[in-house]
């Protein structure tokens, strides 16, 4: 964690250059579409998982807030969007906004408690808030459907034209668009002075405070932004799958997204996306394996990454590329 992962680029990038990564992501998404036309539901889950992992990367990878309860924001966003669709309006974009606001509110509210404590206490509070919300969702049956989950979500056609179809094509492109847009926003955010300040706080909190940065306020804002994006991911999931279950708030969900991010590499937006892809594809094909063996795989992966592969997949790739270019010279 010592090396600074984001370096400010002094030279100005041209418009094409600055849009290249987004174009690449869009292309990768289209490849995914053609790679598994039979299983678009799964492909869409990868996109939503990627967005969720991106939000965690902002909070944990860039700002250094360790959380084991990130599913709280995802789940609340999903429930908020689902309930909104049932009780108010089936308009998808309004639903996304509701999910984002719900996620941001949960994050900003819990951020007060999370950010003023340290280490174990802070981690425990993130975990406890997620569990508390899961308990509330499970008991408040009239609103959330309790253990049966929230169902009966009916969406209006997207932009008034595209129905959410049985094959999931509309859902896929909807999720892809939201993912690419969020990626574009996040990429600019982490390179902005705001994002660099986050990295500064992660690396040395006291020094940033001494430089006059209002550390807690800054962290609360970034936590709320992360919560809003996680809320959008949750809302997408609610709108596209049209059900919200209690597992969306569960600890396993928080742990899984953490594993995806760490596997891909923290502090790099590509890391979140690569980790999600690898994790979910492996999980998809290992789903037949019994849950204990799958758990063993996740646990062992975490141990290996922490002990031997700091920086995850993308970190290892970068290292290989760097040593290669050096040897070519």
């Amino acid at each position, binding site marked *: *964690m010592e090396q600074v992962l984001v370096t400010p680029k002094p030279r100005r990038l041209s418009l094409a250059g600055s849009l290249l990564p987004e174009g690449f992501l869009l292309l990768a998404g289209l490849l995914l579409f053609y790679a598994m036309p039979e299983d678009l539901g799964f492909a869409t889950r990868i996109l939503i998982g990627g967005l969720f992992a991106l939000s965690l990367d902002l909070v*944990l990878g860039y700002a*250094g807030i*360790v959380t*084991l309860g990130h599913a709280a924001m995802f789940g609340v966003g999903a429930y908020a969007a689902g309930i909104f669709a049932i009780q108010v309006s089936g308009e998808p974009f309004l639903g996304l906004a509701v999910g984002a606001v719900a996620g941001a509110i949960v994050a900003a509210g819990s951020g007060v*408690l999370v950010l*003023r*404590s*340290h*280490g*174990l*206490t802070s*981690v*425990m*509070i993130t*975990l*406890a*808030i997620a*569990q*508390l919300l899961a*308990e*509330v969702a499970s*008991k408040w049956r009239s609103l959330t459907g309790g253990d049966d989950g929230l169902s009966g979500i009916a969406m209006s056609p997207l932009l008034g034209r595209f129905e959410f179809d049985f094959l999931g094509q509309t859902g896929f492109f909807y999720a892809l668009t939201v993912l690419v847009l969020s990626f574009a926003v996040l990429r600019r955010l982490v390179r902005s002075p705001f994002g660099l300040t986050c990295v500064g706080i992660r690396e040395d909190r006291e020094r940033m405070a001494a430089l006059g940065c209002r550390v807690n306020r800054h962290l609360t804002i970034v936590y709320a932004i992360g919560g809003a994006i996680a809320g959008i991911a949750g809302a997408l999931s609610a709108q596209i799958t049209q059900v919200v279950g209690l597992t969306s708030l569960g*600890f396993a969900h928080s*742990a899984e997204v*953490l594993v995806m991010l*760490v596997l891909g590499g*923290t502090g790099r937006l590509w890391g979140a996306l690569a980790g999600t892809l690898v994790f979910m594809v492996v999980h998809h094909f290992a789903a037949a394996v019994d*849950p*204990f*063996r799958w*758990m*063993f795989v*996740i*646990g*062992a*992966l*975490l*141990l290996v*990454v*922490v*002990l031997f592969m*700091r920086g995850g997949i993308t970190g290892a790739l970068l290292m290989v590329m760097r040593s290669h270019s050096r040897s070519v010279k």
Partner: protein
Amino acid sequence: MGLIASIIIDSVAYGMVLFVISIGLSITLGLMGFVNLAHGVFAMAGGYGAAWLMRTYGWSYELAALAAVALVALLAWPLQRLLYSRLQDRSDLDQVLFTIGLVFVGIAGMGVMFGNAITPLPLPEYLQGSVDLSFRVIPTQRIAAVVVGVLVLVALMWLLERTRFGIETRAAVEDADAARALGIRTARVYVMGFSLGAGLAALGGVIGAELLPLEPYYPLKYLVVLLAVVAVGGVGSPLGLFASALLLGTVETAAKYLVPSMSSIFFFATMLAVLAWRPAGLFGRAH
């Protein structure tokens, strides 16, 4: 009257079990600053170990319990030396990830070996009955848990206040560098504290098997409860931990008796309220 007595007895017994299990977590955190989320694995290993020894070798309850506790403490030694010490100076994140990884591996191991169902830990006859205290009949097992809890507290206080090991531990908690400069072998203090905490967790897993039943998801299921006890008690204070275990044990047990469907909500709300009021815990010192 009967209800109140039941609540009090169960709360105290539950609090004692939580106390015994979470001491090790508090030691690891206070002494080494290590965020060890895998602590519940030691408690689970203690309970399962005792159950396994009783079933396969037909050992008596006491012998199996002692052997399981010793075994866990012994196994914790190389674990600290080889793995935990490597991560000592890493960030909280790395420690959290590493220990969550251990939790998953532990769950998978126990699940493959013992299956998904709850594994019973049969009690010896003299603990199965109940004692009649004229106003109330109390299960003997609960009394045994309370006795063990108090004994552990007294022994721990004596160990920390009166022995060489206690002095060295307190010095290492205050300032590890200065302690090293004075010739205290902090690495040895660390591994001894870690091993002691793991052994006590195993003991808690055995005596608490009635209240926290043994199942593969044990370390995950009770993770928040154990962390909450440590956070509310304040790091590095056995008395604070004791008070916090009693408080949270009472809240959860009382809520289970009175408003069963809301017990977890009450538990989390109490915990968040205490931490909102005192972020460093009841007896903790602010950093």
